[in-house]
């Protein structure tokens, strides 16, 4: 038992953080809103280059064979930078599913020459569908691989989600891929992003209230503001370890039956959703009117918070899954 990240974990995370700071600043996120099919320039290729796309693919398939514990910290950075690309869907859900199914599509996905998103519940409403080449789709109890589909863009509050209604396409089954595992991966990936978003909202707000003056004092010197932000800090502090712990469960099927894995993943999402909801509410309140504007960058994270807190199941739904796992439902 040692709940501690390795130096390699930290280095990998820092590399990705630096990449996002460089290639995906707020302006790039804003630019992505203008269209439903443009990419963040130079980002996908760079992610392939430093091995992020290949991280979870098995070594024998050309991947890094990294584990989920390392990767959720990358996904935190995706949230922290509000990256508008389907990295979670592609690298954390689709690639492992393709590897399980020994799909021919794996190589190009690892290389980054394709982008694959997911339709985890088969609803036909899919994030990043228009910029992706293929979709890993839930079909009955299994997964399938859909290409050459049509999309109709949906306007959503978080436009960097690039949600679209998907129709038609060519679908082939992904025999051997674990649909329940893929769902848990998506939930966990969303939870990790929520943590990153909450951290960013908190950092931005701490900086703002330390600077902004009202009634002759920094806003952040008022006890009410202090307590708002202390509550956010507490929520993040106790949600994050559940995300890492759930990543461990996903990475260790030999000691974690599907029910235990689902319980751990749902605990993580329930707390991460609650934490990011609180962070969004308090960030807006502590910013005051400026946080409420389109021009100010805070909105990029606010909207992402609202979307990802609910996406892949909100806190209520995941508490229901935990209830089942602990014999209460």
């Amino acid at each position, binding site marked *: 038992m040692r709940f501690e990240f390795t130096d390699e974990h930290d280095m990998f995370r820092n590399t990705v953080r630096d990449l996002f700071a460089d290639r995906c600043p707020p302006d790039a996120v804003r630019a992505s809103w203008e269209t439903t099919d443009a990419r963040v320039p130079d980002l996908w290729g760079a992610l392939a280059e430093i091995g992020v796309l290949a991280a979870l693919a098995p070594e024998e398939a050309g991947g890094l064979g990294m584990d989920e514990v390392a990767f959720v910290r990358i996904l935190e950075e995706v949230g922290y930078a509000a990256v508008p690309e389907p990295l979670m869907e592609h690298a954390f859900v689709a690639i492992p599913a393709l590897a399980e199914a020994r799909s021919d599509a794996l190589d190009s996905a690892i290389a980054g020459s394709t982008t694959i998103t997911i339709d985890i519940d088969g*609803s036909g*409403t899919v994030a990043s569908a228009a910029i992706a080449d293929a979709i890993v789709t839930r079909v009955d109890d299994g997964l399938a691989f859909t290409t050459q589909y049509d999309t109709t863009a*949906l*306007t*959503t*509050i*978080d436009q960097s*989600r690039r*949600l679209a209604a998907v129709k038609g396409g060519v679908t082939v089954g992904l025999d051997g891929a674990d649909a329940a595992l893929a769902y848990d991966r998506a939930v966990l990936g969303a939870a990790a992003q929520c943590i990153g978003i909450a951290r960013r909202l908190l950092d931005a707000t701490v900086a703002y209230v330390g600077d902004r*003056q*009202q*009634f002759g004092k920094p806003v952040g010197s*008022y006890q*009410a*503001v202090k307590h708002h932000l202390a509550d956010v800090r507490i929520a993040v502090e106790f949600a994050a370890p559940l995300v890492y712990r759930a990543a461990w469960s996903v990475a260790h099927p030999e000691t974690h039956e599907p029910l235990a894995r689902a319980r751990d993943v749902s605990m993580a999402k329930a707390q991460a959703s609650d934490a990011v909801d609180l962070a969004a509410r308090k960030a*807006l*309140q502590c910013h*005051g*009117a400026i946080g*409420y*504007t*389109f*021009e100010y960058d805070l*909105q990029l994270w*606010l*909207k992402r918070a*609202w*979307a990802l807190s*609910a*996406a892949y199941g*909100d806190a*209520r739904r995941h508490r229901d899954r935990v209830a089942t796992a602990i014999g209460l439902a």
Partner: protein
Amino acid sequence: MDLELSQRQVEFRDEIRTWLTEHHPGRIASMDTPDGFEAHREWEKVLFDAGWSVPAWPVAYGGRDCDLIEWLIYEEEYWLSGVPGRVSANGVSLLAPTIFNFGSRQQQDHFLPKMASGEHIWAQGWSEPEAGSDLAGIKTKAIRDGDDFVLNGQKTWCSRGAYADWIFCIVRTDPDAERHRGLTYLLVPADSPGLERRPINRLDGEPSFAELFFDDCRVSADHVLGEEGQGWGVAMAAAGSERGLSLRSPGRFMAAAERLTELARSIRADGSIDVRLRDEVVDAWIRAQAYRWQTYQLAAGLMGGDEIGSEASLGKVFWSELDVELHATALRLLGDRAEIVDDNDWLDGYLFALSGPIYAGTNEIQRNIIAERVLGLPRRG
């Protein structure tokens, strides 16, 4: 104590209810778009022509001399009917009480009828980049020059400011005075030379606010409301009404709670309403009723000669937090559909509601007021 409507009140209610049903213009564009703004102005004219734009005002200015109770009934019917919102709200709710209290006869005769008819749509120009809830920090200068004031400075968070005809401002006419002193309440034509307006887009990209830039902008001294240098006192009287009855009548929240209940019922028809969400809906519905009855009690007090003071802060916190939670519940009920913007009035309403705990004095400041002035706790340690 009598909690039934009188025969006369019932007739009044039926009259406005019938009129609204017969004149409902259907859905019109958002008042934060140029076309929608003009469509809302048209609606103001329709209301005015029937005597329903400012029913609580004197007949001479286009009203019906309604008492507070009739006004509350009017508001309930107005919002429940689902007709468009009031683009005139800033003027009617915030400025008009000030004109009635502090305006000269000429000002009253000139401005009030035009406000009632929608000819003048007003925006509020109080906040500045460095003075949000702290109005005493206002820096926009207005220096007397002959019959005019010459304005220089910047205002922000000016609701409806992108398209309004007039703006009611607080400016600093004595640059040497500090904090609350040396401020003046000034009415500014929006087309004044030297005044540049720049829209500020709300979270959803709609220009709900404007920034105002004054660059040697001349405004006639006739347009001072109250006395020069007395702007703080004049403004605070209106701030009382902003927090109090006039801006947020219960009808608005009762109507929202009814729509929320309908949304929940429509989901129940699918057989899938979650007890936790149902509980939130019921709680919102009860709180809307609580706000209603507290307001009727307040209204009786006002009609009996009470003044509304710091107690207005109780209502401001209550309605603004109810509004946020009511809309958040609606979004939870919508589930996966919540994040989709198209035809989603609830999302729009949520974004609007989020500003409630911030504007007109943040709820943190309201709670300070409640603690210090209503409960009498020590000001500062």
